[in-house]
């Protein structure tokens, strides 16, 4: 079977006609104020306090880089990054909560950003970045896959009254049903949750890689939770479609990160860098989830850039554009502090601007 992706965006509907709908225009004006966001990601330390199966950080060579622990060196880097036009810092691998003084330096220079953490250690409140607390199932499953007991319980103790936090639930083929239990617990605690898909690292042969059945079951569970907990779940019908599609994000949308994009003209290909803990970076390997297998990439961080960047091809029909707006509204609410998500405009979300030919 050959699969051909046809790009829409051919102007079958005028952009001005699409924007004639007041709801679409309002949402468009809301999200476009954030077009100034330009991200780069930073590995903060090569250490983690736990060790999870399928962790992409400890795959490949990233974790072999030496650690730059000097806050002054980080400050110098951040000043240079700001000069380069970077407006959003994503602090990731391995576990940023182990180096709060470095996170603080980043926040003080680039005030918008997000930290990805396993949530087992507090991050000082003055570092006012969005905080993504990773959840891989209920506590029994976390104990198996992440070898950490009482994870959700401990995460909730630390983040119980912290508006920076959003819990990011990573769906694997084995924890789909548990998402209901986790979402119910988080809803009862007034927390918010968004979804991630396990995306296999290069060469990964373990049991966490999704297949057609687990993608379908995940999509059904996401839709159920989104309907049941609209105030808790930050997601959209279109997010479900693109993140549980048989084709990965790269095949659907052609990933614009430098790792898959040779052009340095504009956008991520021009400005994105992924810094290792020694403050080095390599354009050929640069994306938000390096060492992830592009064919299996459905990662939430990847989608935030890949789908968002493809605005042009979604501006073909009001429903398609509304679905894209829902996606971007979700992405901004998940990543940017103080950005509040609106109600989804598109209820079915089934407006992928691509077609597959058998």
């Amino acid at each position: 079977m050959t699969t051909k992706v046809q790009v829409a965006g051919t102007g079958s509907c005028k952009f001005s006609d699409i924007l004639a709908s007041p709801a679409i225009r309002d949402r468009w004006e809301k999200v476009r104020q954030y077009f100034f966001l330009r991200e780069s990601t930073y590995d903060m330390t090569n250490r983690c306090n736990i060790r999870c199966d399928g962790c992409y950080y400890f795959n490949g060579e990233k974790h072999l880089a030496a650690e730059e622990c000097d806050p002054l060196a980080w400050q110098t880097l951040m000043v240079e990054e700001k000069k380069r036009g970077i407006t959003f810092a994503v602090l990731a691998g391995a576990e940023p909560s182990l180096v709060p003084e470095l996170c603080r330096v980043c926040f003080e220079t680039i005030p918008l950003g997000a930290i990805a953490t396993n949530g087992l250690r507090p991050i000082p409140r003055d570092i006012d970045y969005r905080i993504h607390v990773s959840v891989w199932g209920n506590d029994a499953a976390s104990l198996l896959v992440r070898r950490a007991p009482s994870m959700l319980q401990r995460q909730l103790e630390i983040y119980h009254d912290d508006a920076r936090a959003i819990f990011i639930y990573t769906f694997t083929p084995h924890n789909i049903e548990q998402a209901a239990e986790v979402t119910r617990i988080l809803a009862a605690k007034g927390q918010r949750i968004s979804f991630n898909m396990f995306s296999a690292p290069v060469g990964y042969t373990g049991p966490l890689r999704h297949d057609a059945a687990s993608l379908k079951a995940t999509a059904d569970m996401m839709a159920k939770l989104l309907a049941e907990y609209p105030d808790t779940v930050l997601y959209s019908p279109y997010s479900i479609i693109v993140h549980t599609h048989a084709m990965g994000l790269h095949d659907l949308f052609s990933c614009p990160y430098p790792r898959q994009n040779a052009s340095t003209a504009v956008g991520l290909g021009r400005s994105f860098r992924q810094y290792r803990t020694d403050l080095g970076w390599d354009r050929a390997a640069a994306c938000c989830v390096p060492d992830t297998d592009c064919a299996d990439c459905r990662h939430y961080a990847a989608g935030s850039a890949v789908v968002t960047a493809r605005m042009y091809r979604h501006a073909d029909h009001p429903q398609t554009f509304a679905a894209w707006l829902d996606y971007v509204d979700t992405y901004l609410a998940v990543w940017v502090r103080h950005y509040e998500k609106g109600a989804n405009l598109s209820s079915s979300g089934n407006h992928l601007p691509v077609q597959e030919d058998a």
Partner: protein
Amino acid sequence: MNSVWYAMSAPERTVKGEIRAQVHVQADSPWFDGHFPDFPVVPAIAQVSMIVDMVARASGSSLYLKSASRIKFKQLVTPNTVLTLQAKAGTEQSQYLYRIRAGTEEVSSGTIFLANKDAENVMQADKNATTIRVAEIIINELKLEDVSADTFDPDLDLVDEVGIDSMDLATIALVIRDEFGIRIDEDDYPKLTTLRIIANYIDEKKSEV
């Protein structure tokens, strides 16, 4: 100059804003009259004239050569040679960088400054209705201040000098798509980085219809 001296194809503009044309200098061109009767060659200044002529035709203005610099003549041009002319706006106002080739061999290259016979200002004369309208769209969409459609430098790099990014370019491309009724390929809009390149792109697309 006119076609008695040589035959020039209609100049084309590429997406990158380069102007190109082909020239055939006939054996009976008056240029060969005074130049080495036993060994006829196209005089050096004639080559620069062809470039001026090509840019003038492409921009629909009557231009003349104001000054030139760094001109290098690398090869003699004999009768009945087909030359490929290329010129691109430089970073300074009214400046063009040019190159002439015979097949793959470079014949000459250099930098010239042109002026408009009527208005003295190539930049202004270069602005046709498309350019003005695109300038208005960019100013409006990007909410630019301190610039008007008349004063907008057509060669200002929107990415490097104005600091816009891919999402803004996509937005501009969508408004242009609406306004001019043309199809803009998704792969093309990231290349539309100056007013001149955008206007040329639109004019090319419209002429295809």
